[in-house]
């Protein structure tokens, strides 16, 4: 035998659902229960049968657990305007080690279409993981906030909050001012409070924040950052300077800044600087 039969092929190629067509977010209810929201966007004409079953498959790669949530037929999803009912989760999912697959299948279980594996947004408005690899920091925007940007210590993890006059959330990572000045100052705020504050912040996201800060400061671990801050030569400000400096020198941030600087309008021949001169 020189070949092996695997299964009867009933469909030549399944349809791929574009990442932009499905948005999956993890949220936490007021009672502290995590849940998923799934939204389909612009898929009204997606070429699958209306009676195809829609499943949301959650692959938790921390606990090696795969669960599936049956949503119903594609027709019911379309009738609901593309919004699925929230999916209750037994436990909070790790944004970086969870794979979400939205799958359409027929009555025999043949996959008709599926997403290629969605990344999880970790809170209300998304996170910075796409840009800076910082999935542990949650970004959100609060209209009543008057500061353009500020760093906040929440029990679950670090939060960077954008204010009423900041660009929209999605536009922030393309805003030179936010990346070059806003983000470092928010990180400065978080790290300073983290060193100075005695609050017990023991969650995986805080762990990741401390470990990233230590890496930016070229320290072995967070304890070394705290030790730096108690040295007379550096003090709290000096230690935080090292963290922020390291953050700005990180490869991804440097690249983003260079790209944004090219496109930014710093008052060239058509701008205010020339007029002023």
């Amino acid at each position, binding site marked *: *035998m*020189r070949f*092996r*039969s*695997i*299964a*009867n*092929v*009933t*469909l030549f190629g*399944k349809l791929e659902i574009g990442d932009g067509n499905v948005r999956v977010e993890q949220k936490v209810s007021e009672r502290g229960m995590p849940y998923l929201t799934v939204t389909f966007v612009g898929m009204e004409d997606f070429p699958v049968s209306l009676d195809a*079953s829609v*499943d949301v*498959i959650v*692959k938790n*790669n*921390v*606990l*090696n*657990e*795969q669960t*599936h949530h049956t949503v119903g037929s594609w027709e019911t999803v379309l009738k609901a305007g593309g919004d699925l009912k929230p999916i209750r989760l*037994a*436990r909070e999912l*790790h944004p970086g*080690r969870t794979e979400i697959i939205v*799958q359409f*299948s027929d009555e*025999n*279980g*043949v*996959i008709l279409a599926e997403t290629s594996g969605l990344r999880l947004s970790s809170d209300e408005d998304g996170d910075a993981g796409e840009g800076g690899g910082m999935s542990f920091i949650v970004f959100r925007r609060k209209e009543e906030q008057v500061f353009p940007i500020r760093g906040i210590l929440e029990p679950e993890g670090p939060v960077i909050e954008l204010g009423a006059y900041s660009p929209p959330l999605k536009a922030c990572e393309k805003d030179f001012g936010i990346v070059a000045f806003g983000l470092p100052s928010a990180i400065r705020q978080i790290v300073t409070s983290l060193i100075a504050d005695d609050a017990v912040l*023991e*969650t*995986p996201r805080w*762990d*990741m924040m401390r*470990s990233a800060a230590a890496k930016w400061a070229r320290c072995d671990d967070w304890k070394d950052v705290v030790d730096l801050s108690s040295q007379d030569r550096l003090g709290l400000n000096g230690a935080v300077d090292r963290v922020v400096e390291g953050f700005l020198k990180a490869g991804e941030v440097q690249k983003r800044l260079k790209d944004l600087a090219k496109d930014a309008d710093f008052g060239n021949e058509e701008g205010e600087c020339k007029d002023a001169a």
Partner: protein
Amino acid sequence: MQREISPFQPRRMTGKALERFDHYFIENEKKVTSAPPPFEILLDDEWSVPAPEFGLLPENPQSKIELAKGINEALKGRFDEVMHDIGLWSWITLRYADKVVRNAGGKWAPSSDVNYRLASEHELYKDSGIHQYRHRVWGPAYLYHLHGEASRALLSNDMTKLGEGFDAVMWYNVATRPVLQAIDLLFFDGEAGKVEGDFRPPARRPGEFRKGSIREFVEHVRQVGYAYSLHRVSPLKLIEGLSEQEFGPYLRNARKRLANGNLPEGMVPVETAA
């Protein structure tokens, strides 16, 4: 009058006890030793405190599934709540160390220390190299918590070992109900009540037949998973492409069980045999 507390009432180890417990498994990792685990700390109030919110653990489980089922029953549906409770799981592990820390000759032979010491939630989320399911007590209890009796084929081997099939299913994260039912149908001998094919397959040269192990079946399942939803596919579809030369004895077992109506937990009766 004070009621006597059963030695099978779950307890939580104190910090001091955890240190002692960890020390034993770190010190004796992958050794055959005459030193038993520190049983003397098991019921001493100085080393552990009772957890009266739980029921009694099984006194003398004879198989991995009996142990897994008994622990789940004792936890009264609160597995998710205590999933990362190191004090509790360490105490339960020590309670059954007599069963899970021995080698085939009955000697104390702890394997890798992480197979007995539960990682904290932080460690687990931080370090992608930790495979919690390999814990000799927590792992089987976790699989049983997720799939109940449908997991019996993967929980029917030696209590001291993880099992090749269990490792393959968890490693590739394909523990769905149809996959477990297909494994049960093929590899579980309903009459003898034991699992077959749970071995590590030897390396193959190109063109050589597979040996028909559970691990090789899991590889096959992963291939099928590209075309079929592993949550919705029939277990029969998962086994229909297997060759007689490779999986012959197991296919015969599946046919026999289908003919006798001896189906895996939750499988819908079918008219056609595999």
